[in-house]
């Protein structure tokens, strides 16, 4: 619960019908779908705010000055490196949306091994045409971010909650529980205790409503690390359930490998290094 600035810039709170932009960087577009899938709420939203730029929904004005900018995706190219700085300069309140924007996304796996060039050569027919950075990084690595919404993808409830709070002129309430608490509130049966399936819920931030455990599968940590996450204790438990070090490392490094707590835990898991407690 670290303090965050209130949703206003130096020239006062957001008033009237705020202008909004939804920007895309390196990502799968899944978080923008959290807007597009809102149904009737999207119509209400369109009445409450003035959406200036949202390419996936057909509004294109990428340089628009806006009150609230939602940013999906990570920074992976020289062009994106420049563009995020322009967007920051033209936005009063900047929201990073989803795992790519908050932690660099799946694609930040390339930060871990320095094999970007080899991977490109292996995947693309003409890699010479690709201009990319060596790393995939979170928006906050580059510019000041006023609010982060974690998740891969984020869901409509989070997005609407954030918009509504900003319209009221307050900061959205931040999730701080672990997936296990949502899992129990949903009365899902714990897959780790009842079936011995390795689950990431005990170290993962809430917000998804324990979607995976409710369907009988393990949490794969798509909402990123929770506060006070004891990754070492979970790492030992994963090993106890028979997960080999490499597989345990993948659990931590899967989606939010750029989040420091998971980056470090994955490294320790790969080295089989949780035994010392």
């Amino acid at each position, binding site marked *: 619960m670290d303090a965050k600035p209130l949703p206003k810039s130096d020239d006062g709170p957001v008033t009237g019908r705020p202008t909004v932009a939804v920007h895309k960087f390196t990502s799968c577009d899944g978080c923008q779908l959290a807007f597009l899938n809102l149904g009737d709420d999207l119509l209400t939203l369109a009445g409450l705010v003035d959406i200036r730029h949202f390419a996936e929904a057909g509004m294109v004005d990428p340089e628009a000055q806006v009150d609230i900018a939602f940013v999906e995706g990570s920074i992976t190219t020289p062009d994106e490196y420049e563009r995020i700085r322009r967007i920051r300069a033209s936005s009063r309140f900047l929201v990073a949306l989803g795992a790519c924007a908050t932690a660099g996304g799946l694609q930040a796996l390339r930060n871990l091994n320095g094999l970007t060039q080899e991977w490109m050569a292996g995947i693309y027919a003409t890699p010479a045409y690709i201009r990319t950075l060596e790393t995939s990084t979170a928006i906050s690595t580059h510019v000041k971010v006023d609010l982060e919404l974690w998740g891969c993808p984020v869901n409509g409830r989070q997005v609407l909650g954030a918009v*509504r709070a900003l319209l009221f002129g307050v900061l959205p309430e931040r999730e701080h529980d672990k997936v296990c608490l949502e899992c*129990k509130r949903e009365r899902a049966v714990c897959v780790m205790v*009842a079936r011995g399936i390795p689950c990431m819920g005990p170290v993962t931030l809430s917000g998804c409503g324990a979607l995976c455990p409710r369907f009988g599968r393990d949490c794969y940590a798509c909402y990123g690390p929770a506060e006070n996450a004891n990754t070492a204790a979970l790492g030992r438990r994963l090993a106890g359930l028979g997960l080999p070090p490499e597989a345990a490392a993948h659990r931590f490094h899967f989606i939010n490998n750029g989040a420091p707590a998971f980056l470090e835990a994955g490294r320790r898991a790969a080295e089989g290094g949780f035994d010392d407690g």
Partner: protein
Amino acid sequence: MDIDVSVRESRFLPSADLQNLLDVLTEAGYECIGPRVRDGAIVYEPVTRAAELPYGITDSQGPGEYRLRADAGGRCFAWANGPQALKPLLFAPQESLWMVSRDAQGRLAFIPAQTLARPIAVLGVRACDLAALRLQDAHFRDGPRPDPAYGARRDALFLIAVHCTHPAATCFCVSTGDGPHADSGYDLALSEIDEGFLVEAGSVAGGVILRRLPTVEATTRQRETAAGEIEAGARAQQRALPGTDLRDTLFERLEHPRWEEVAQRCLSCTNCTSVCPTCFCYSEHDAPRLDGGESAHYRQWDSCFTIGHSYIHGGAVRGGTRERYRQWLTHKLGGWHDQYGRSGCVGCGRCITWCPVGIDITEETRAICAD
């Protein structure tokens, strides 16, 4: 409500007639909730047919581990408690407390939530959960500010206890004095023996239902068999707390090194408090409608293992797991004596089984309270 044990009827209901109990309860207007197998565990959900009950199923439980397996005996209640039973039926995991709406002039109207409590009959309630229910009643119903939603649901509840004969390795209700025999607090109580059920009434409402069932007088042999099985279950328990009042010992040892040691193993994940039938903490939140014209104020289960639980203006009092685990144990086994006149632990063992890393409250307590 309570009737002296000595005058209780004890009747015999043949196995094949358990369906009659469900039918009579349904006719009396109750929705029946009972044990069923779902996702590898015994959970409490609506039942209409006796065949849906977990016949021929038993469990094995240990720290961080729960498994169901076939049981040759073919009985219906040959298992100890699963992850949840009564608590979520009364203390809802999430519920709206009030709504606020704004009219065209900007005036606010506050509307309390109405609880439409349907009459529910719960089949298969264990002694530990009846003891836990008394504590939840003390907290939510009997205090100076009764909780209306809890009270409405509580009033609509009909409880059919089952005396335990198959404690899990994690059960320790004998040491807390809460089981495995259900002494009071039920409407009906069942003892399962091979050929059927002994049925006792514990309330006037229970007596009314009992008289509608096709029972016969229980034989002395049947009563002795039932009592013997409950006693054997009690003797089979493997765990115990080192005492029923550890308040002073725990509060004297707030700096014991074990708190830090357990914090290295604890995930601070809230599974223990969520499955605990006596834990009652919740947090409150607002869910405004997007247009801002209306907002629901709701509560949901919280836990002393979250940062929000101890958050007060500007920071959390209990930032680390050492402080959170210590809060859980010293409140449960210490502070409750001041608040409710007894320990908050009824020995159900759920926090041991459903802890993903198998932290054992009896072991931690022994380590801290030893010598």
